[in-house]
């Protein structure tokens, strides 16, 4: 004789087995959308980043020209809305009015500022763990890497979940660029944070990801 509970559980198991494919389909379909959304976000943030760099460069160039009185001869009428040059201005003087590219003297300041910010990040990374450090290059990886890493380190004490998320994002970024050694380091940090948070499933998922990353290095 079967109890009502057994019969109900059996019926539920049957429904579950009939739904397994639907669960898997739904999960995969939504993950594809998630990836698509993430790629769009990355593309947009890269675009905005480039636009900001461009605007900053342009503004610094303009400021440099307008604030360099030694390179300009102002008309006697200072209230005039434009700058005028004496008729005897030489070609070299004209050229000094054109905003110069990165190599020009007036852009040294902006380069210095960029390097100073980057140095701070690098110092923080060195203090934390030198293995996390990356070489600078122009493929966009190192800037993005340092940006996320700086955020992860800064939020480590105040918001562990956010920091964990940043380390996971960092690991994924490294994997996308094929930097598996750095990905492993980032997964290690994530796993360590997950343990501190004390969430078993997060610990398991980060540990699994770490093992997978370590296997990739071995291969």
């Amino acid at each position, binding site marked *: *004789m*079967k*109890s*009502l*509970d057994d*019969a*109900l*559980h*059996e*019926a*539920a198991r*049957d*429904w*579950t087995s*009939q*739904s397994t494919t*639907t*669960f898997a*389909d*739904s*999960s995969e*379909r*939504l*993950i594809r*959308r*998630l*990836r698509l*959304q*993430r790629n769009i*976000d990355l593309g947009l943030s890269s675009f905005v980043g480039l636009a900001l760099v461009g605007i900053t460069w342009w503004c610094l160039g303009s400021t440099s020209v307008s604030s360099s009185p030694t390179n300009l001869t102002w008309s006697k009428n200072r209230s005039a809305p434009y700058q005028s040059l004496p008729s005897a201005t030489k070609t070299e003087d004209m050229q000094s009015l054109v905003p110069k590219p990165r190599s020009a003297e007036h852009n040294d300041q902006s380069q210095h500022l960029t390097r100073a910010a980057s140095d701070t990040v690098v110092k923080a990374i060195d203090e934390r763990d030198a293995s996390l450090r990356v070489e600078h290059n122009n493929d966009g990886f190192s800037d993005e890497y340092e940006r996320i890493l700086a955020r992860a380190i800064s939020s480590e004490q105040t918001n562990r*979940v956010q920091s*964990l*998320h940043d380390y*996971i*994002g960092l690991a*994924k970024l490294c994997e996308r660029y094929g930097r598996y050694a750095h990905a492993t380091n980032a997964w290690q940090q994530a796993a360590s944070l997950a343990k501190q*948070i004390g*969430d078993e*499933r*997060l610990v398991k*998922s980060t540990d*699994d*990801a770490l093992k997978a990353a370590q296997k990739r290095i071995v291969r």
Partner: protein
Amino acid sequence: MVSERQSTRTEADHQRLRSLFFLARDGNEQAFRELHDVLSRPLMAYCLSFTRDLESAKDLFQQVMTNVFEKRDQFHDGNFSAWVFTIARNACRTWESRSRRFVAIDDLDQIIAEDNRGLDTDEIAYVQSAILELPEEFRTVILLRYFGDMSVADIAEAEDISVSLVKIRLFRARQRLTTRLGPLLGYSV
């Protein structure tokens, strides 16, 4: 009596769900898969309580998951499962009002009874049809409890009713099922 899990969902459980959700929202696939696994059975059970047929429930389930995904930026804090079930309830009500338009002239109970007549030889199908023929308030709690594998407290939260009312509904639902399934299961009522 139903062997109820006494534990209510703790704050740690809520926090874990929220953490998974926020990680998933920011693109963490592993967290997304885990969250999907946690939500799948309760939501499918909930959909089935509306559609009373598994194939339609599968379509509705996909719709509910899509709605949750699309509204993910709207959740900031609070009770995550209550938020999810609110979305599910709205989607199910919409489905219900649409499908009612198509079967308004027929008696749905009659249709289901006729559809299931051929399955009665199969014991599991017979039990399933008995569950699906229960009145809505009983059907929902039984499905969430057994198919959704939810605790009484979780059902109360999802249905926005008291724990005592869930217990009463479960008791009455089981009484009806005992009457209906007694002969099949080999005991008299």
